[in-house]
């Protein structure tokens, strides 16, 4: 027990932002209370996740952002039920209306009388769905490749680093635009795959770095001595210690994906009608002239709001998942 304990303490201090809580395989459940730093103080035993939750909830901006983002996501999910009009519903009696409370045209209408509030709701649905899909795919591929490269290093690592080098020599947006022409675009799913194919390399680099340093730690050595196989060491001993940085990075990918997808769709290489996406809506609005400012303004504001919320949540998560940070943020 004492050896396990000391290696666990060492890990918590030496790996800094990397270590997330205790190594679940090395420390029996309930040991968290004995390990707490404040000796002599009668403290309630808390799991690492309850500490994380506590620290996150103290980060007010992140909590507010999370609430707003959840609301936006709900609007997206229930767009078909909530939207006052259909996505492509043409109403020639209400063309080019400024934002008004009448008939629920809060975001105005375009030249065909399509209600932009409804269109934005459907746009949120597509854009958020694509962004989450991209983040999940990029994280899974990136974690898998990064873990293998970092754990075995050598040839696999070399190959991975050379591949990511290639990705780094050409501007990302240019690659995406070319890839969109290659795969053909328009469909949200295809656009999502193209984005994920570019973004996984960043995850792989980070996970590789984490695995590279963690595999030298004593608890890995101990697991090896106890006869654990490579796969078990990677999944049960190292990966749980990487969850923090991976989760933070994943939230950042969601924000990046929203912004990049919007740019692609705006340039006409991303998601195209009849699929609604926020970037495409801005492009639509822009083509109808800048005098109808509301068509450009509102979809863009929603993008800014989503990206802002995700960035704040990422900030809050980073603080919450960092066990070296004892100071509670007001």
């Amino acid at each position: 027990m004492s050896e396990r304990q000391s290696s666990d303490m060492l890990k918590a201090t030496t790996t800094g932002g990397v270590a997330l809580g205790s190594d679940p395989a090395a420390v029996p459940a309930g040991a968290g209370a004995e390990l707490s730093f404040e000796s002599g103080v009668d403290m309630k035993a808390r799991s690492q996740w309850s500490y994380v939750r506590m620290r996150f909830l103290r980060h007010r901006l992140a909590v507010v952002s999370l609430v707003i983002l959840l609301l936006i996501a709900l609007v997206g999910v229930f767009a078909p039920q909530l939207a006052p009009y259909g996505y492509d519903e043409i109403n020639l009696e209400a063309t080019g209306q400024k934002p008004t409370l009448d008939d629920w045209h809060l975001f105005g209408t375009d030249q065909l009388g399509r209600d932009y509030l409804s269109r934005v709701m459907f746009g949120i649905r597509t854009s958020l769905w694509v962004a989450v899909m991209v983040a999940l795919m990029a994280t899974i591929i990136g974690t898998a490749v990064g873990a293998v490269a970092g754990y075995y290093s050598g040839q696999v690592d070399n190959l991975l680093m050379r591949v990511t080098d290639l990705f780094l020599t050409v501007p990302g947006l240019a690659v995406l635009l070319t890839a969109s022409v290659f795969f053909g675009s328009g469909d949200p799913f295809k656009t999502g795959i193209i984005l994920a194919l570019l973004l996984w390399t960043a995850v792989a680099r980070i996970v590789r770095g984490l695995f590279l340093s963690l595999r030298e730690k004593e608890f890995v050595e101990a697991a090896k001595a106890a006869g654990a196989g490579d796969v078990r060491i990677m999944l049960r001993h190292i990966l749980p210690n990487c969850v923090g940085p991976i989760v933070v990075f994943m939230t950042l990918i969601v924000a990046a994906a929203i912004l990049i997808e919007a740019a692609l769709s705006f340039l006409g290489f991303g998601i195209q009608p009849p699929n609604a996406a926020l970037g495409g809506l801005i492009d639509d609005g822009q083509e109808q002239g800048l005098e109808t400012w509301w068509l450009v303004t509102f979809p863009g504001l929603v993008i800014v709001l989503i990206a802002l919320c995700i960035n704040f949540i990422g900030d809050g998560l980073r603080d919450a998942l960092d066990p070296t940070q004892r100071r509670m943020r007001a």
Partner: protein
Amino acid sequence: MLSYVVRRLLYSIVVLFATSFLVFTFVSVSGDPLAALRVTPDYDPNTIKRIEEQNNLDKPIPVRYAYWLKDAVRGDFGTTLLGDRPILPDLWRVMKNTFMLVFVAEVLAVLIAVVIGVYAALRQYSAFDYSATTFSFLGLAMPVFWLALMLQVLVVTVYEATGTRLFPISSLSSIDPGTGVDFWIDRAHHLVLPVIVLMVASIATYSRYMRASMLEVVNSDYVRTARAKGLDERKVTMKHAFRNALIPLVTLVALNFGGLLGGVIVTETVFSLDGMGLYFVTSLLTNDPYPVMAWLMVTAVMIIIFNLLADIAYGILDPRVRYE
């Protein structure tokens, strides 16, 4: 150091060849550039055949790559597929225009970001610090193309309300820009909005970076030593802290070049500026593989050079860094 640079250069050449082959395959498979001609009614099939043969489109991809490589290495990148327009002169022209835009925007952005970052770090948790943080969060959450459109909307709205046109909202010059000084005044006037758009994202990134690196330096031991020996505060911040805090920023600015080009693509499209970004998008839309290839290769070379410069600058500025 020299051997390090040479090794890096040699490695870069290998990377360039690999990238170019991958990209070429990618672009070549991406679709039939003559598809539009084929469906045009009354278009002579013999002409299509002639174009195919002239450009070796009927050959397998490695052979086509070899032909392309021959043109690229000779330094002129050949001609466009349709219309046989030489690519290099066009590329030079748009590069010059883009360089001007990017140079002005980046120099201004770095200057402003350094001032903001340093001041925010010295007055940590002050109102200024919080405003700067808010600004950079906003700047990073804002799609570049949307910011550009909103500025255009602003100009149009002001014009409709008062009849004055604050800034031109498209192209690089007026139809009749004049000559000499007049020409450059006209050009500067046209560049105001695009430069602002490009600056916002850069300032947002750089100022946060500068603030973080300044905070780290200000709390370091040697700054405490400088204070302890009785140096006045101005000298401590300007000579001891500021100079060292600048080092990481130099690297960041050099490494940010690829990301910057993304912003350029979007900005130039919105403002229809005759630069690299618009050239790239237009080439993609016409499905012409050769200008796209030339563009990607030129930018790849530039990015590799900037990465190398970043490493070299780091080695020179920070004596703790040694390359074997």
